[in-house]
């Protein structure tokens, strides 16, 4: 079977080449179906509880997706005629932003006041440049004491304001819509900064969060992928010192990636902030296959074999190991399907596809290419890597000291993992240097956090909101929220009722309280509704039949644990105080806060499954239960130690890191397989543990070192991403791979020498075995 396959390739290299390329092109054509999605909803599956709650809330009340502009005058006071004029101009122009349905700012805030029996409803700053100093001071006082404005639309110290543009985005083409809005707002800011110099503009809100997601994906695609490519070419050249070898590998990599992305298109999987890095990952993982094959071939050539013979030798030697390692790596990536984050599942599936394609191409296309392309090799025995052997001797001599030392180090590291904390917070996905993060930090520092939490209070029957008891609960809840340390601002209809009651009683301060009967409340609300101008209606706070209201809280940018804890506290308070009111909390921040934990839990299940599958595979591959059991240690320890190191570096676990365990498991298993396979082979041939360790080091030590360097570089490049989910994932995976090598080189040999003392085949004496083994290398 194997012979047929090899002969087919070696006898008909052109046909093989043509067939491979044909299939690759057929697959690659699928990339015409590829499209990019960068909106934040791709992190959540359609069944995600928080996403559902959020979308329900959006359909019951009006949508709340927004672009916010924070404006800060250099002079430091927003109540100057100049800055007020800017805010007013901005507010008016903002109505022309694509998809804008509502624009709120300090200037168009609908201020109500009483004048005898007249209810005046007007913009707080209708004509700032026509206002006298007194009028401005008056309006300033109103703005800084109005609960709807202060700490939200205007900083309490009057140094910055926010303009909020609510957008109603289409369901189709969401990405382009986000882009259009972000672009138009930026343009408007630029235009107005010309007219009003000495003002700083910062853009935040959901629209710009999306924009940041998209920008970082684009950055990754345009910087990391080419960088990875260059690194790979450079490393190949250094490792192989063969132009043909490098070129063939590059061709295999390119065809693998083209076919993978094409298949992604055929499967209908879109490109996203996560999958945009599939080429980088596939490149990293596929390089190893090619390096193994080509190194063996070069070895054969140097031994004086003909090219065809050398290829045959390389193929026969590598087919099985490359297959096994590809399968284990693919399994690791496939368990990303356990993730609650759809794009991480996509990432896993596509990478798995890419890995298996890389395997297929490196045993078909690669040998065909190597056969067809000219190749010169100096017949020169490469000086065997004396360093690796010296290292092996050092390990063997010191194994009794190494074992306890590594055990202690491991325990310390694993103990440190407990300091890690799951934390998903969308703003922190971005490096502080990114404009969005900068703006969000600025907003938090000067006005309020960017995190929001909307509470929908559902009171059952139509008009139930107007009942005094219910209004009282809304008011109490609002007050309770405001007393919480996490809270920056609360927007609530109860404030409106109080203000109206005061207005209806000639602005008498003592009437700043809730209306006392249902009819009065209903009629106030009707009156108020009838007086509001276009776009500034109450739909965002009160539902159609007035059976529900939405209390909108703005919070500091908390970690997800504190955030969900706060949610629970608020829900508990309401459940206790108002058991008859149905409450739902929702917001994009809440979606991110929850996804981290649920995703972590599901990925732990995925990791367990990956471990079981991979261990079974190892038992089969090594044909030994014992070896399979021993392999658990070097397979598990690196993740434990890696997460321990992570606790020291950062300690924050975001959704990207939750997949690292199963993903890295599939990769590091390769090292173990290679090492144990060689060790076992030596043991079967009668060597004792020490000799077998020596043999394992000298036969695969260098290869393991090389593949680790390649993999770590690949993941190090991923860690350069501006996008925290990708960067952290790359960094931790890189760390774990490096640790895995250390475990395989330091801990595993020591462990084997201490615990695998059983019988050496008595019939052979040790020296003979050693010689025999050396010959097989």
């Amino acid at each position, binding site marked *: 079977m194997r012979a047929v396959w090899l002969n087919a390739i070696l006898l008909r290299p052109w046909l093989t080449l043509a067939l491979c390329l044909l299939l690759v092109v057929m697959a690659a054509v699928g990339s015409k179906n590829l499209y990019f999605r960068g909106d934040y909803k791709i992190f959540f599956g359609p069944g995600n509880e928080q996403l559902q709650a959020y979308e329900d809330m959006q*359909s*019951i009340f*009006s*949508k709340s997706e927004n672009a916010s502009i924070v404006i800060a005058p250099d002079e430091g006071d927003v109540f100057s005629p100049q800055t007020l*004029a800017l805010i007013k*101009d901005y507010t008016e*122009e903002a*109505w*022309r*932003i*694509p*998809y*804008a*349905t509502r624009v709120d700012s300090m200037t168009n805030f609908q201020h109500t006041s009483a*004048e005898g*029996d*007249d*209810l*005046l*409803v*007007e913009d707080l700053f209708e004509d700032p*440049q026509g206002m006298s100093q007194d009028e401005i001071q008056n309006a300033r006082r109103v703005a800084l004491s109005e609960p709807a404005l202060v700490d939200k639309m205007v900083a309490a110290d009057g140094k910055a304001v926010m303009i909020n543009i609510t957008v*109603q985005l289409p369901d189709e083409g969401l990405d382009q819509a986000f882009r259009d809005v972000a672009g138009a707002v930026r343009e408007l800011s*630029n*235009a*107005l900064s*010309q*007219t009003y110099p000495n003002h700083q503009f910062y853009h935040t809100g959901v629209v710009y969060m999306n924009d940041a997601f998209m920008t970082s994906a684009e950055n990754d695609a345009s910087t990391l992928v080419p960088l990875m490519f260059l690194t790979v070419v450079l490393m190949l050249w250094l490792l192989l010192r063969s132009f043909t070898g490098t070129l063939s590998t590059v061709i295999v990599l390119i065809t693998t990636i083209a076919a993978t992305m094409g298949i992604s298109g055929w499967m209908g999987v879109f490109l996203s902030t996560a999958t945009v890095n599939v080429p980088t990952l596939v490149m990293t993982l596929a390089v190893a296959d090619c390096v193994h094959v080509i190194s063996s071939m070069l070895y054969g050539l140097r031994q004086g074999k003909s090219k065809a013979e050398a290829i045959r030798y390389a193929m026969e030697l590598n087919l099985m190991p490359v297959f096994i390692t590809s399968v284990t790596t693919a399994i690791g990536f496939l368990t990303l399907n356990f993730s609650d984050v759809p794009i991480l599942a996509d990432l896993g599936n596509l990478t798995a596809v890419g890995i298996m394609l890389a395997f297929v191409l490196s045993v078909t296309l690669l040998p065909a290419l190597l056969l067809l392309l000219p190749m010169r090799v100096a017949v020169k025995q490469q000086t065997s890597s004396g360093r690796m052997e010296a290292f092996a001797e050092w390990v063997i001599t010191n194994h009794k000291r190494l074992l306890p030392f590594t055990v202690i180090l491991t325990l310390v590291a694993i103990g440190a993992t407990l300091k890690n904390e799951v934390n998903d917070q969308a703003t922190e996905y971005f490096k502080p240097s990114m404009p969005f993060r900068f703006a969000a930090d600025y907003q938090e520092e000067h006005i309020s956090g960017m995190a929001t939490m909307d509470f929908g209070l559902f009171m059952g029957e*139509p*008009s139930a909101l*107007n009942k005094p008891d219910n209004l009282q609960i809304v008011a109490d809840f609002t007050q309770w929220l405001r007393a919480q340390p996490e809270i920056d601002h609360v927007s609530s209809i109860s404030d409106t009722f109080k203000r109206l009651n005061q207005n*209806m009683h000639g602005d008498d301060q003592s009437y700043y309280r809730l209306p006392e*009967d*249902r*009819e*009065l*409340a*209903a*009629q*106030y609300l*009707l*009156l108020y*509704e*009838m*007086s*509001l*101008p*276009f*776009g*500034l*209606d*109450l*739909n965002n706070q009160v*539902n*159609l*039949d*007035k059976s529900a209201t939405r209390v909108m809280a703005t919070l500091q940018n908390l970690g997800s644990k504190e955030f969900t804890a706060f949610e629970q506290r608020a829900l508990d308070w309401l459940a206790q105080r108002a058991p008859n009111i149905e409450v739902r909390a929702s917001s994009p921040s809440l979606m991110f806060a929850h996804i981290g934990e649920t995703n972590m839990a599901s990925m732990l299940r995925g990791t367990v499954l990956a471990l079981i599958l991979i261990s079974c595979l190892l038992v089969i591959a090594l044909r030994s239960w014992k070896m399979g059991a021993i392999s658990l240690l070097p397979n598990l320890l690196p993740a434990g130690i890696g997460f321990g190191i992570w606790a020291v570096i950062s300690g924050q676990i975001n959704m990207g890191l939750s997949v690292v365990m199963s993903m890295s498991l599939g990769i590091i298993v390769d090292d173990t397989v290679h090492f144990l396979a060689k060790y076992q082979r030596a043991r079967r041939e009668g060597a004792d543990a020490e000799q077998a360790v020596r043999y394992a080091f000298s036969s695969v030590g260098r290869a393991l070192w090389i593949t680790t360097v390649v993999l770590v570089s690949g993941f190090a490049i991923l860690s350069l991403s501006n996008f925290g989910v990708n960067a952290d994932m790359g960094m931790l995976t890189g760390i774990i791979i490096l640790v895995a090598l250390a475990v395989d080189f330091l801990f595993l040999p020591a462990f084997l020498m201490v615990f695998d003392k059983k019988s050496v085949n008595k019939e052979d004496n040790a020296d003979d075995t050693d010689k025999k083994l050396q010959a097989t290398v």
Partner: protein
Amino acid sequence: MIRIRSFKPLFSALLSLLLVVQVQAQTAEEKGLAIAKERKQRDLGWQDNQAEASMILRTASRQEIERRMRLLTLEVKDDGDKGLTIFDQPADVKGTAFLNYSHAIEPDEQWMYLPALKRVKRIASKNKSGPFMGSEFAFEDLSSFEVEKFSYKYLRDEQYEGMDCFVIEQQPAYEHSGYTKLITWLDKEHYRAQKVEFYDRKDSLLKTLTMHDYQLYLDKYWRPMKLSMKNHQTRKSTDLITHELQFRTGLSESDFSQAALKRAK
């Protein structure tokens, strides 16, 4: 006045374009105005009417609620009509009455009687484009058609629902209007509005109003028994259904005074 510098070239380009269009399309605007005048002319002299009506409000997810009201209207020569709305449902606003003197270019004058407070409150606001009772109808969508409210441009002839129609573009003259333009389909036979498209400040289609079931009153005046307003951006909609309509019921100015508000029940 504040000028936005970077928009200046755009403004002047638009302005010159406008001038060119004006010279060439003089007739289109004249024709539009003539049609508007004819429309108004055909609807003069009905004096007053009283209606019982329902508003059906629907959300994007098709939830709906009904509100019932009575509408009293007085024709006013050379100005917007006067309207008195008495709310019957929901129960907690029953008896609340709303008086509106609509004006073509000035803000409307509005008063509301709150039975629970037993007071008449004047509302001073520029809310013509604001929603009427939380519906998709704005005040300006419901108030009487006045020639001075808009500038006009005849666009084309077009069939709509089997009727030959004029298609007219109307630009609101009211400074604080929420619309940049309206496109109206008027049937040629009776000059009745059949469909109106409303464009918002960013010039994208905001709402479409369609008129259904026109009935003839006093052998001269056509009134639709159902107005259907769809908001394309929020996907909410509102139907205004007239259950009963009577003309020349003997209403006078005094029925539309602040004092009359309290009496209305």
